[in-house]
């Protein structure tokens, strides 16, 4: 009986470890994905500032960049929501184990 309990316990620890690694990989992927819209926002904003500093700025270009900044911020927000769902899921799992 005690041997069985020990086996069950070691199986549980192993599966916990696998779950941790899997979760870590998912978080890394999501963070990598989150970086993309941030890069785009920084590029569009910096280029817009450059264009506006000249006398011959084409406002149509700047306006298009502003629309892209807004779209990319919304994209980043969606990714953050996914990350939040994942962290909530993890907390539920941890609570369940106690």
């Amino acid at each position, binding site marked *: 009986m005690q041997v069985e309990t020990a086996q069950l316990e070691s199986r549980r620890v192993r599966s916990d470890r696998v779950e941790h690694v899997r979760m870590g990989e998912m978080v890394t992927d999501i963070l990598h994905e989150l970086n993309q819209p941030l890069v785009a*926002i920084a*590029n569009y904003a910096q280029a817009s500032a450059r264009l506006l500093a000249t006398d011959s700025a084409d406002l149509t270009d700047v306006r298009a960049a502003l629309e892209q900044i807004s779209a990319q911020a919304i994209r980043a927000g969606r990714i953050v929501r996914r990350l939040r769902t994942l962290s909530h899921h993890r907390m539920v799992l941890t609570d369940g184990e106690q």
Partner: protein
Amino acid sequence: MTAHPGNNQRWCYVVDDDAAVRDSLRFLLKSVGLPISPHVSAQEFLAVYAGEPGCLVLDICMPGMSGLELQQRLNFESALIPVVFITGHGDVPMAVEAMRHGAFDFLEKPFHDQDLIDRVRRAFEKMRGAAAG
């Protein structure tokens, strides 16, 4: 989508799988008058690139052929084009690997526009020097 340079123009080739990153780089480099040729993948770039002078801004982590694999392929073909890698936060060991294989420089995403522009201009200078020498 792919603009392809003539023989006398120096182009900044950009290879990144993310459409927004690609388009924002096009917008940024265009704002300082640098002509750019954007590409969605390493394979797509290889299909059109024939050794023209310029600079390659290359994402390190891409599905299919990675930036590192593309660099090794260009090295194998003795291409002279300087490569500026753009990397995510976790990719620093890969960036070190890229430098070991002769990358011109690397930048961690997100970066300051001036840092990228300076590196692209220095890469152009380097290629001009290599072509002259």
